């Protein structure tokens, strides 16, 4: 008894160590540009992060920061052209996703990696029943009979808590609400037990009451399956609840990254602080991202120094001319600001 506990603990320790050494997904220096954008301006610029097995990485940032483009590039779903991956690697289970053939990528999609989207109302094909759409994805990756696939689809509908699943199998998407459709999308995405789920603002388009249900559903399914997740969200409450690691993006760059505790307890980048609304002059926190004066600059208007400079209350000459590097402030906590850690430079400002 004592022995087996000890063994399990030892195995856990080894397992944890292994996870730390080789994350499930490791993205390094990912840069993406769109044809026609000004030279040298990447919509995603030098982005690096990693996701460990079973863990959750949240990506936050305002609209237009490059979150979806990052996610789509990992799935191989970017429209190319106009998008182009101009640099970087994405190591998933020992293979670089970006050097796989289109066929190999398709074999992974909906299988080892899956994605759900922001728009449940339009993400299902209006011409086919939801049952057929789920079954299709199962049959694509598994050598099983149609009847078995149907059984599996039904099981997935039960797991995402769709009432009367047998009946719902034969329903068309338009007969369902947005929340139900998102559940269908989740059932479809998880049907082949992916190791990584990318959820791109899965609740933004839904009613507030439904949002919480969908998030807790995703959480529960993640606990059951042990999959890793990249969750893109606007909702800092959700981030605090589900994230292990957080990446804050601004104008295509990571401005801050770290563990959820580090980001919430000790935010270092003025943008992150602004999002949290912890600086009164930058607006109040409202559950979602607090509003910060101004907007994300377009590719044409991109400042040459710090990209946050036009909106930053702390900006000075140096910020106008030189882009700050992403610096590691303490182990595992990174920020891209000349004046981070802020306490050091402007004592007591936070």
């Amino acid at each position, binding site marked *: 008894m004592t022995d087996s506990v000890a063994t399990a603990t030892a195995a856990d320790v080894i397992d944890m160590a292994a996870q730390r050494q080789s994350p499930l997904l490791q993205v390094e220096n990912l840069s993406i540009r769109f044809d026609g954008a000004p030279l040298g301006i990447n919509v995603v610029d030098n982005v690096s992060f990693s996701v460990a097995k079973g863990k959750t990485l949240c990506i936050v940032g305002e609209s237009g920061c490059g979150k979806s483009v990052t996610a789509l590039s990992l799935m191989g779903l970017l429209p190319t052209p106009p998008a182009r991956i101009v640099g970087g690697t994405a190591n998933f289970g020992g293979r670089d996703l970006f050097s796989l053939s289109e066929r190999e990528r398709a074999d992974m999609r909906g299988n080892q990696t899956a994605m759900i989207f922001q728009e449940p109302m*339009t993400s299902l094909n209006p011409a086919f029943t939801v049952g057929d759409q789920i079954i299709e994805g199962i049959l694509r990756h598994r050598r099983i009979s149609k009847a078995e696939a149907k059984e599996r689809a039904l099981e997935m509908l039960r797991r995402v808590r769709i009432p009367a699943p047998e009946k719902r199998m034969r329903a068309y998407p338009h007969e369902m609400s947005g929340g139900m459709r998102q559940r269908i999308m989740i059932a479809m995405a998880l049907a082949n037990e992916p190791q990584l789920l990318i959820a791109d603002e899965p609740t933004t388009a839904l009613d507030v009451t439904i949002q919480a249900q969908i998030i807790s559903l995703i959480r529960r399914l993640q606990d059951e399956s042990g999959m890793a997740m990249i969750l893109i969200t606007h909702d800092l409450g959700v981030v605090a609840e589900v994230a292990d690691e957080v990446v804050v993006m601004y104008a295509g760059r990571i401005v801050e990254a770290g563990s959820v505790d580090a980001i919430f307890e000790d935010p270092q980048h003025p943008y992150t602080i602004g999002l949290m609304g912890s600086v009164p002059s930058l607006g109040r926190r409202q559950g979602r991202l607090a509003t910060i004066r101004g907007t994300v600059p377009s590719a044409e208007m991109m400042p040459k120094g710090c990209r946050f400079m036009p909106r930053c209350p702390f900006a000075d000459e140096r910020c106008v001319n030189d882009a700050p590097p992403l610096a590691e402030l303490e182990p595992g906590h990174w920020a891209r600001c000349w004046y981070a850690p802020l306490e050091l430079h402007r004592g007591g400002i936070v």
Partner: protein
Amino acid sequence: MLRYIAKRILIAIPTILIVSVLVFTLQQLLPGDPVLTLAGEERDPQVLAFLREKYRLDDPIPVQYFAWFSQVLQGNLGISLRTDIPVLTLILSKLPVTIELAIFAMIIALAIGIPTGIISAVRKGTSVDYAANVVALSGLSIPNFWLGILLIMLISVRWKLLPASGFVPPTEDLWLNIKTMLMPAFVLGTGLAASLMRHTRSAMIGVMRSDYIRTARAKGLLSHVVIMKHALRNALVPIITLSTLLFGELLAGAVLTEQIFTIPGFGKLVVDAVFNRDYAVVQGVVLCTAVGFILMNLLADVLYVLANPRLRHSR
């Protein structure tokens, strides 16, 4: 669904009534005394009086209309002036020829238009797309009569591959019938293929951009499944409607092509009737064409609903 169809048919009825009034008015607008027109060369007062009585030409116009329309409803479209054959009989003998021609042309149009439309949508912006568009544009701008004459000169006169004209009923010699139909059907079909291609292309491009196509790809489906199943199924909805309407137009629009290839169809019937001032025939043909058009529109609407799960259930 049945209720929807019934409703559509009910809506079609007033349209048909309006058309019948227009056709009747056409008769009223004809220059001169209609009795003289109807009587043709005949000038015998007794005959004229008989006709006047028969068509109630002394009654008020609305009464005349109802008398005429009740005849029409009984299938009596009058008698051809020139041939003494009932107009309905004439129409029924010519219509199958035109329908056969239209079906052939439609098959050719669909077989060319839809695949090229799909290919140029999928290869949007490439040389394949540009080439298809150039061909389609030429297809649209080359007049049918010119293409018809060109084909006759090359294929029939020079290479002697196909007969230039002369219709043979399929009951007589099916193979010869197909051979005579091939060129006119091609001439009619290519014109339609061009417009089908352009519509298929734009419908496919629109659909390929939609979120559910991204979902289909996110499932790992291979691109031919994404295109031929998920995208085409949705892009076809407007194409089905368009094809049905085009088919209706084909029935009426084959006039020139039928003239060139001397195919004794509906078009030729109209042209001959117009030249011969055979007004009863013209009237009958116009009425039939209009009704045919309305029916095709009806069919297009019904097919549109059938192809669209969202509408299929809510109606």
